[in-house]
């Protein structure tokens, strides 16, 4: 074992925080379940605050030490034991998820408050518990250092996400949920099969150990192909997106925000982790091109089909289908840089920024759509008149989130686009740059249509069905602003995402 590998197997300062990041949401969920009723919401909100603090503390520990934060569970060394590790990529995702979940939590207070006079209402109770469960599972996905633990984390994530789809219990949403579950299960069983093959070939599932042992041979090829395909099914990359539009569009707004903004990022993150950190020596450019080709198809088809939707939530759901495509454009770009012997950080950063800006922007968009629905009583795109005068902040938020999806400066989407296009040109893969630019144009069409429709004056004498509380609008705007101002990440003095990413660089062919 090389010295750098053993260094990764020591619990570092702040390692306990990783345990807390997982434990606190799940503990909050259990406590909320025990006390039930309106208490669940109180417990959940307290947990949100605590979780955000923990995420910030982990980021601080990472920045202070400049190395990955590690915790060895029970002191058992891998390969027998299991380690939790948070490098730059994990920490950035932890922070993003914490911020978005907090925003959604604030927003959901109005939609999922337990009505007064009722001891316990089903939907609010389940929502708050599952929100925490999703968070805990996502944190586990980000910090887990073992492929089997990751399998369990992914399954937890799916089990928490599926009931969110059918929170309102309508037949249509239950059916969407069942379809989502079955498809996701097929994906996870493929992932598990891949993991089993890896264990058979290399005798470990610990990420750094595996990264050092894995080499290009049939077992690794089969395992990687199965795992990636399974993860793509869970991420809903085109053409594996059958479950996404009905599930994301049918769920209540706050739940859609969780599903579209965060849940799909879990499996995407894992695919990225496998690709760059575990199988860095196995992946090939043609395989990466395949992923990006699907991504490009997702961008084109998703955007065009989004344009043809008549309902706002379905439009946003198809926009997610398209945006997932962007997340996979980084694969050939980073692999291209690596094959050319260059540092792939620029491409990885571009992909991460895309993920973060989509997480914040899409959560904001779905929540904005929820407010529109509350105000109008419907969400037909053709008839959004009066929304701008009733919900000015929400329309502003929608426009800002849209600008981020289009990739207008100074949004995170712009910075991501800039980085990815730069890499596309450096590695002579200009067609991916073209796809990004065309995708941005298509996105702008539906953002423009929606924003302009909301600006139309209302009928004389029209009144909002329900008045929306200001803090809900503020939460939406805050998330949209996060996305819109994410381009300021360029001012960040250190390359946060690359801290502690020693895994890929230590790998040497035996």
């Amino acid at each position, binding site marked *: 074992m090389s010295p750098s590998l053993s260094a990764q197997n020591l619990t570092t300062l702040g390692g306990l925080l990783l345990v807390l990041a997982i434990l606190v949401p799940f503990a909050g969920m259990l406590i909320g379940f025990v006390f039930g009723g309106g208490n669940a919401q109180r417990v959940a909100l307290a947990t949100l605050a605590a979780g955000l603090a923990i995420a910030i503390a982990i980021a601080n520990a990472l920045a202070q030490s400049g190395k990955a934060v590690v915790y060895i569970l029970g002191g058992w060394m891998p390969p027998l034991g299991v380690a939790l590790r948070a490098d730059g990529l994990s920490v950035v995702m932890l922070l993003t998820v914490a911020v978005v979940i907090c925003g959604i939590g604030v927003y959901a207070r109005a939609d999922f408050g337990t009505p007064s006079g009722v001891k316990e209402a089903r939907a609010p109770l389940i929502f708050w518990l599952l929100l925490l469960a999703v968070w805990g599972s996502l944190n586990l996905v980000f910090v887990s250092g073992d492929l089997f633990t990751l399998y369990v984390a992914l399954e937890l994530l799916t089990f928490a996400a599926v009931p969110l789809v059918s929170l309102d219990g309508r037949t249509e949403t239950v059916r969407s949920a069942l379809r989502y579950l079955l498809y996701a299960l097929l994906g996870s069983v493929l992932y598990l099969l891949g993991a089993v093959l890896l264990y058979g070939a290399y005798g470990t599932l610990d990420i750094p150990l595996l990264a050092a042992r894995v080499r290009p041979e049939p077992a690794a090829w089969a395992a990687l192909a199965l795992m990636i395909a399974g993860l793509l099914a869970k991420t809903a990359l085109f053409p594996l997106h059958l479950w996404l539009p009905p599930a994301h569009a049918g769920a209540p707004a706050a739940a859609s925000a969780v599903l579209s903004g965060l849940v799909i990022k879990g499996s995407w993150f894992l695919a990225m982790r496998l690709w760059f950190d575990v199988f860095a020596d196995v992946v090939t450019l043609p395989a990466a091109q395949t992923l990006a080709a699907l991504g490009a198809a997702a961008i084109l088809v998703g955007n065009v089909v989004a344009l043809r939707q008549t309902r706002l939530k379905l439009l946003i759901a198809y926009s997610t289908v398209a945006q997932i495509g962007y997340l996979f454009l980084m694969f050939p770009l980073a692999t291209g840089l690596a094959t050319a012997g260059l540092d792939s950080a620029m491409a990885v950063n571009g992909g991460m920024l895309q993920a973060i800006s989509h997480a914040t922007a899409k959560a904001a968009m779905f929540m904005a759509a929820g407010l529109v629905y509350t105000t109008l009583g419907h969400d037909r795109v053709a008839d959004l008149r009066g929304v701008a005068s009733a919900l000015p902040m929400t329309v502003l938020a929608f426009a800002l989130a849209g600008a981020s999806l289009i990739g207008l400066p100074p949004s995170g989407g712009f910075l991501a686009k800039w980085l990815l296009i730069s890499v596309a040109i450096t590695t002579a893969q200009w067609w991916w740059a073209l796809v990004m630019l065309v995708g*941005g144009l298509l996105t702008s069409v539906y953002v423009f249509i929606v924003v302009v429709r909301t600006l139309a004056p209302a009928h004389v004498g029209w009144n909002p069905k329900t008045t929306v509380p200001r803090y809900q609008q503020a939460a939406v705007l805050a998330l949209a602003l996060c996305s819109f101002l994410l381009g300021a990440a360029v001012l960040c003095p250190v390359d946060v995402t690359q801290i502690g990413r020693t895994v890929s660089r230590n790998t040497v062919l035996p």
Partner: protein
Amino acid sequence: MKASDLLIATAVGAPLAMLLACLSPAIRKRMPTLLGFAPIPALAAALLADGTPLMFGNAQFEFSFAMDKPGAILLTVAAILWIAAGAYATTWLRNTDNAGGLVVCWLMTLTGCVGVFLAADIVGFYFLLAVLSVGASGLVLQGGTLKALRASAVYLGVALLAEAFLLAGLVMLALVMPHGSLLIRDAAAAISTSPWRDLTLGLLVVGLGIKAGLVPLHFWMPLAYDAAPIPASAVMSGAVVKASALALIRFLPFDAALPDFGLPLAAIGFFGAFYGVAIGVTQSEPKVVLAYSSVSQMGFLVAVIGMGLAVGNADAALAASFYAAHHLLAKGALFLAVGVVATTGRHRLWLVLLPAAVLALGIGGLPLTGGALAKLAVKPVLGDGLAGLLADLSAIGTTMLMFHFLSRLAASTASIPSTSAPVGFALPWLLMFVAAIAVPWKSYPLTGIGIGSYAFQPEILWAASWPILIGIVPMLVLWRWGRHLPQMPEGDLMTVGERAMRKVITWGYGLERAEGLLRRWPVATLMLLALAVFLGRMLIDWR
């Protein structure tokens, strides 16, 4: 912070601060009266700031703003136009109850416009250009009609298309910049040595050309200027569109002679110059005629830039800026005149029409006007060859178009003969008239292109006069038989574009059906398995 830094900071900061202040509804309600004041810091900066750049940011990334000579010329006149049009808008807004939208878009456009003129780094430039485009499309939308909605959509779509080209070009540019610099002043040198020189230049020229309204992607111009409120049309046709010309001037490497780029650019520019005239004379709406004149004039400006690039004439930058500055003033003033005439009765019409005629013919190069100076300034760049001849022909065409404009303008008076325009309309218009006459004379010697007295020499006077005199002839023909001309739809080529759009929409329908097929369970699951197999196949390394 030095005084110059402070000037530049407030030039961009003042409209931005006012824009942010609009978040408060109470302030937003009062903002219309302040529109005319927002550009004053920009004017001060243009007149007083020196060339030292203002930087902020950190070692990773710095935004920088700086004043260069073309920027100073254009910012001066743009600020004057923004002030006058702002004052006009203040009066205009008194009659509308929903002022908020226009005020917000106005300030956003102003911020973007001043920012683009001052931006000295690539990213800041692109950012502010996006602010400018979004703001301007919002301004068009304020027309409030269905036509305005369509025009605004077209404007934004074309602007974003242009920015997509531009982004690709700028990224390629940034990759070859020395020491990772992002400053625009290093750009020209970097382009000429770049391994992707042709592609970078092509992308930048196409992107900026679309924004400058080059034929065949000019159709957004008549649509937008016609649909937008008058003061918005004035600033858009005057100031906003010049941002792309200024960017061309700054990015293109005028030190190196690049005939492969310069000549086609000039050819497209000249084509636009004549095309704008040809379509313009078939239009009857004064604003649309002016818009086609803008197509023509921007084409001419690009032709000047292209000729400068072709022969490697470093003076072309300044000459083109001066020409742009004059067009900015004159066109802005004429748009305001359309508004003034529309509220003026027949009795006082000549009070407006006469100055408007001077300005309009000035664009054609009427002697002793700023326009004559502008033609004089670009003459050395164009030379005496074919380009010079084309320039004269374009002056003839412009004169004809301007006569047509004046006749249409005279026909668009208010219905009651004794009405007179409100002071709030007339004063800004007067200011613009004076500026359009005086500023070119004042700044001509300052730019170092030549001295003013040169323009009084008889042969120069004659050279400027004969295209005007010749221009009268086709004009008379047009007046006599003009009604037989085919009526071109406003935004001519746009109708072709719309037919193509419809085609795309049908494709979208097919795509949607195919996507529905892919979402069936057996198809999707089989795809998943097929993908796993295919990925595995792709992972096999045959080495």
